[in-house]
């Protein structure tokens, strides 16, 4: 496999850690994204609580929060968080349905994994369009 080996004068064994060549099954992709999204959402908890605090303190706090959301970094963060929430929530519902034996057979599981991955990205796109 050219381009997939670590070359040294003494050792030419292939190393199968080329991320571009590892074919991740769609279910595994949905699963690892579920975990990544969960960690992102957990990081978002203190930010969300801070926003709630500020928005309830008074009109100035409310305005300050609205102004802070105008910047480019916060808009990008909103898009990322929208993806994380959508993907995590939908992947979670998929797991809950599998718990009660809905769609737990492989063909349906693969199809629902595709749907979850696509729907998460669609929500992110929607959030991006709305944010700009």
């Amino acid at each position, binding site marked *: 496999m050219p381009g997939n080996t670590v070359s040294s004068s003494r050792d030419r064994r292939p190393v199968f850690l080329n991320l571009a060549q590892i074919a991740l099954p769609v279910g595994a992709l949905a699963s690892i994204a579920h975990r990544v999204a969960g960690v992102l959402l*957990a990081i978002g908890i203190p930010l969300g609580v801070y926003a*709630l605090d500020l928005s309830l303190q008074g009109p100035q706090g409310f305005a300050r929060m609205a102004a802070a959301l105008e910047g480019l970094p916060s808009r990008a963060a909103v898009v990322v968080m929208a993806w994380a929430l959508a993907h995590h929530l939908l992947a979670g519902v998929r797991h*809950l349905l599998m718990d009660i034996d809905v769609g737990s057979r492989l063909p349906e599981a693969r199809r629902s994994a595709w749907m979850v991955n696509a729907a998460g990205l669609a929500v992110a796109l929607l959030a991006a369009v709305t944010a700009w």
Partner: protein
Amino acid sequence: MVKRGPSGWLAWIVQRASALYMLAFLVAGLLWFLVDPPGSHPAWRARMAGAGTGIATAAFFAALLAHAWVGLRDVVLDYVRPRSLCGPVLAGLGLGLVAVAAWVLRILVTVRT
């Protein structure tokens, strides 16, 4: 020998139950926002000062923090190495989540005064 320590079934139940409650809360909250958006700051405050909203929101954050604990605990146990670091990291994480809980409680109590 009797198996001691956490078996995981409680975490499993907490994760599922909190997920279902958060799902219901988010769907209901989103619909309420769409049907009757709190356009001004007083309207937003008045909504959050309601007893029903306050209790439902407190329960939401309890579910959220419990759910986050179960998930982050799994992540820490899977990836933090050496394993001897897991305990201290989890202790810090737990303290952080308890601090957020106290913060939320203060917000929800202050808005009613």
